[in-house]
């Protein structure tokens, strides 16, 4: 083995070691960064097919015209995060967000608590309330500590998810 070959080998091992670190860190970054692009959200219908057959009645919620007279805002649009592009039409019911299986919007996200936040109607407006989450609920740029009025167009950030109320 010539001196040159050995030097190249020596550097090759170091390069290999650093490539391993690089691959790992690049892959890790995907976990840390909120994905900008909406990945094809795999919609997992919580009810199997027969359920919809069993209850063929259309849902009562989309009686929005009446509701929107009372409450400002008709729908929640998920702007960022794994579920980006999803629209939740609002009725009179509250919408809960969290990792718990009984949430309206289930976010499988390390930064979201199991019962993270809720959005509920109150006296003609939609309110957003943090339910004691670990990483907080952010209305625009401030972390909310008590129920706050949610105006249309103001982003609410929960973990990696951003939702906006539509008028």
């Amino acid at each position, binding site marked *: *083995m010539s001196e040159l*070959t*050995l*030097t190249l*080998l*020596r550097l*090759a*091992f*170091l390069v*290999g*070691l*650093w*490539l*391993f*670190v690089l*691959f*790992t*860190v690049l*892959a*890790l970054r995907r976990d840390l960064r909120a994905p900008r692009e909406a*990945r094809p*959200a*795999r*919609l*997992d*219908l*919580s*009810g199997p097919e027969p*359920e*919809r057959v069993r*209850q063929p009645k*259309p*849902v*009562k*919620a*989309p009686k929005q015209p009446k509701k929107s007279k009372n409450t400002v805002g008709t*729908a929640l*649009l998920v702007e960022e995060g*794994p*579920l980006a592009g*999803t*629209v*939740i*039409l609002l*009725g009179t*019911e509250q*919408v*809960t967000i969290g*990792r*718990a*299986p*009984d*949430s*309206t*919007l*289930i*976010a*499988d996200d*390390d930064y979201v608590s*199991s019962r993270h936040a809720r959005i509920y109607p109150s006296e003609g407006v939609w309110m957003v309330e943090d339910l004691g989450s670990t990483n907080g609920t952010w209305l625009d740029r401030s972390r909310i500590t008590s129920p706050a009025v949610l105006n249309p167009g103001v982003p609410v950030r929960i973990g990696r998810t951003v939702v906006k109320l539509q008028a």
Partner: protein
Amino acid sequence: MTMAEPGFRQTVRLTQPTRRLLELFLIACGWGLGVLGTLQVGWTTGEPLGQRFWITAAVVGGLAVVAHLVVRWRIPYADPFLLPVATTLTIIGLVMIYRLDVAAAQSAERRNETPSTPDVYAQLTWYAVATVLFLAVVFLIRDHRRLQRYTYTCGLFGILLLILPLLPVIGSTVNGATLWVHVGSFTFQPGEAAKILLTIFFAGYLVMTRDSLAVVRTKFLGVGLPRARDLGPILVAWAVSLGVLVFQKDLGTSLLFFGLFVAMLFIATQRRVWLGLGAVLFAVGAVGSYFAFSHVRVRVQIWIDPFAYAQDAGYQIVQGLYGFANGGLFGTGLGNGYPQLVPFANTDFIVAALGEELGLTGLFAIILLYGVLIERGLRTAVAVRDPFGQLLAAGLSITMALQVFVIIGGVTRLIPLTGLTTPFLSYGGSSLVANWIIVGLLMVMSHRARQPVAVQHSDPDALTQVVPITRAK
């Protein structure tokens, strides 16, 4: 924005990608690094590699792939970084141990002595045992919360294991530290297993009592301290383990346990007073043992001025420092340095050997790998939903972090040198097995944290709300 007709009822969810393919890819990279490194050792030292090398490489690769496949089968949502990083560190350790074996064999040949038995095959056997136990953890502990039932059992066994080396027949003293147990020709360091058991004990105990530890307090010297009856078991465990370790003259492990206890108390109660109290107790203990024990004094003296003791007490650390200096920025290359000049180069001082042959560049990469491993462990602690799991994952990660800090800090003379094994890299079965069990526990926990929550279909209205959902264009 158009909106489709709302019409179907559902909740929305997205499952996290399992990323098992990434895991396999990283394992393959680590294996390739090992082959490259061993070939380099062979070519540089002129030692023929032969058939034995390829068998070894195949066995290592086989073990890693079996571990990967079982993870894919049993815990598919587990963290994809823990297994490849631990495997790669183990492989780098195997390469370095092989390299030191070659050096020992060649120097024995020059002096016409019979070469000592190579360590690398023993380490390979231990890696196989570690993999089996890793798989046993994956198979048997489907739900880490079941470990909480064995809180006190674990605490008791942990302390018993710590006492074992002090017993007359089976215990033995090696190089001044009494931490070995002999059963027949079989030896092991029970302290490594005790590390895991006591972490489980502390996690379980703190979950039960953390509220009273954090809230109920009696004033003592102006500081709000928890009630004695809440504090009692902790102090007992603390005193017994530290006391035993003082008798065994094992500074590194005492430091490890002390740091672990303080960190877990802090995490469980979220009260900074524990950090302050820990720092004060540590200072008292450190100063006290400096004056009380001569072996502690020696450690501090060779830390402050190793070159004054270069021929006796400080010989090892001075040789280690020469090794780092010889390695420089890019290292001498595997097989090209003199790492065998450092006593215990393949256990305590394997970092010095790696620093010499891979240089600062290589050592930084290895330290970063430890960083990734610990970050993934703490990430698991954040993601796990139950408080016991959170404490256990955090405790296990902190154990590993402290161990890496104490030994690498000691070898590089950042802090006084205390003997500890370098996780995954060092030659030694107990340490390798214990650290692989830790990886297994962390992976089981991360699987449970990341797997999608099962949604009950039986009565959707009871569980899920009726919300019409559409997708925007």
